[in-house]
């Protein structure tokens, strides 16, 4: 359902976040430079540097002019400077991004696929004992916060049993390469990935199961049965394909939630992605980094929503004829 309306929505969302990033530090009482960079950074600054920064942010200009300066800077990829990491925010974020993409991407795929398959199977057997058990089990799982699941996995499989490493994404200074490196990465990834996937499988499951139950009542299911199709073809090709549509439209919104989940999970496993970065920045009051992460994550969520809009008509041709 690609439409101009959605583009307007995305533009508003982006503008809201930019406005928040811009206004929040400037609304704080006291020195705006301190509010922009954090207290720690200001101690290290020389008067000349300060004057340069005032000039750069146009802090001596009216507010709308400042916003213009800020806006152009962001569009040129300048997200500010982190005094904690002593590097441009954009570079700091870029360095952490691959790990979060790996974790969030894999767990989104795993959770969605698992959710859809379980949802189809459960909906197909609606009312039976296995359906009710699955429903109750997954709903209970849905109540467990991702960070608690992560902690339990860490304490049981990491600390007590010692099967998986406790922190990080790689064994430091190991000099591994090739297959050994891959195994090392996967070993570090296993627990965070399991925590995140377990925490998010129920969303897709509940939605698919609900849709499955309505889809099974459709006349075309009766036709499929009358044609003598096999159970499998009926279950997956006819009912299943239609039941996953609402899940696809929600991928964008879910991505936002999985990224948020990754934030907690990364913190627990000290996994060096954007979530752990945000946590470090929160502890160090490194404001530019938090603002940068917020913007980057928002852009990712918006792009994912956009892609979901584009894929939807491919999966459900009815949508493109609907206008």
């Amino acid at each position, binding site marked *: 359902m690609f439409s101009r309306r*959605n583009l*307007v*929505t*995305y533009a*508003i*969302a982006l503008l*809201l*976040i930019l406005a*928040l*990033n811009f206004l*929040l*530090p400037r609304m*704080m009482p006291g020195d705006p430079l301190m*509010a922009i960079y954090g207290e720690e950074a200001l101690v290290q600054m020389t008067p000349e540097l300060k004057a340069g920064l005032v000039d750069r942010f146009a802090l001596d200009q009216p507010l709308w002019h400042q916003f213009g300066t800020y806006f152009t800077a962001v569009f040129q990829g300048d997200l500010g400077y982190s005094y904690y990491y002593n590097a441009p925010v954009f570079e700091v974020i870029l360095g952490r991004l691959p790990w979060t993409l790996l974790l969030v991407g894999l767990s989104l795929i795993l959770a969605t696929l698992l959710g859809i398959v379980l949802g189809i199977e459960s909906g197909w057997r609606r009312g039976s004992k296995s359906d009710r058990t699955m429903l*109750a089990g997954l*709903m*209970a799982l*849905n*109540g*467990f*916060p991702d*960070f*608690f699941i992560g*902690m*339990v996995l*860490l*304490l049981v499989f990491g*600390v007590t049993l010692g099967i998986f490493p406790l922190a990080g994404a790689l064994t430091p200074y190991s000099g591994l390469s090739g297959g050994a490196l891959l195994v090392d990465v996967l070993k570090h990834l296993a627990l965070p990935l399991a925590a995140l996937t377990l925490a998010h499988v129920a*969303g897709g499951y*509940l*939605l698919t199961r*609900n*849709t499955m139950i309505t889809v099974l009542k459709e006349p075309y299911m009766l036709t499929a049965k009358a044609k003598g199709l096999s159970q499998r073809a009926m279950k997956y090709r006819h009912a299943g394909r239609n039941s996953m549509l*609402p899940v696809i439209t*929600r991928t*964008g*919104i879910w991505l*936002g939630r999985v*990224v*948020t989940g990754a*934030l*907690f999970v990364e*913190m*627990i496993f000290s996994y060096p992605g954007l979530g752990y970065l*945000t*946590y470090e*920045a*929160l*502890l160090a*009051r490194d*404001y530019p980094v*938090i*603002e940068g*992460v*917020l913007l980057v*994550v*928002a852009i990712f*969520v*918006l792009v994912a*929503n956009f892609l979901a809009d584009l894929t939807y008509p491919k999966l459900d041709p009815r949508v493109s004829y609907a206008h």
Partner: protein
Amino acid sequence: MHIDLKKELTKSGGGRFGVALLLLIVLMAIFAPLLAGYDPTGQSRSAFQSPCLSHLLGTNHVGQDIWSQLVYGARTSLLVGLSVAFLTTVLSALMGASAALIGGLYESIVMRVVDALIVIPVIIVLILVAAYLQPSLWILIILLSLLGWQGGARIVRSQALSLKERMHVSAARCFGGSRLYLIYRHIVPDLSPILLVEFIYSMRRAIFMEAGLAFLGIADPSIVSWGMMMREALDFSYLNVWLWWLLPAGIALSLTIVSITFIGYTLEPEMEPRLRGEVHA
């Protein structure tokens, strides 16, 4: 549209389970002073005691009684959950119903803001705001409410749009009922099932977020909460104290959220079949 709440909730096993569990937690919060035995923020004798008769779950790193903290933690979670759910529901109803009833440019603006808020990652916004403001519990409650009304407003609007055209509302309008009278007498009562579901899911989301933020260290340090207990306990994961410190706090939090999930899921299809899927956001 008018429903018998008690009947709906006790009809299914899941509903009964949810209600019983939540009732247990509410009782725990109400009778916290009787159950606790110690001041949750006061220091008992020594740190890192193992569970014994006088300290059911032992003591933490500064010698506070963990069982007392667990019991008082229920108060924080429920207070945040109920307050945010109330404010969010009021905001959703106001924004959604006014958009539907006023229409025009106002409606388009409200709905674009709703759509935009739905895609914004709320937790990161909260972290940024909290990094600046160091929010107290009440500021946190207000922030969570301001960032949580959008999903509900969308549902309320679509329902109010259809209610507006129903026969009994038109009839009341023909008889000269004022706009305020129509809202108060017809629209709001007919919206109540939807608002109830919105209330329950907001409560669930708020409890989850409060715990998450407290876990990240964004919380009023003088107020005991389950998220904060888990944060403190995780620092000592190399000791076996997590068995009676971290696990009980996490389980209490999870059981609270599970109970609300079961109640919500039981009520959801009874109220409004079209809600399916919408309310999970």
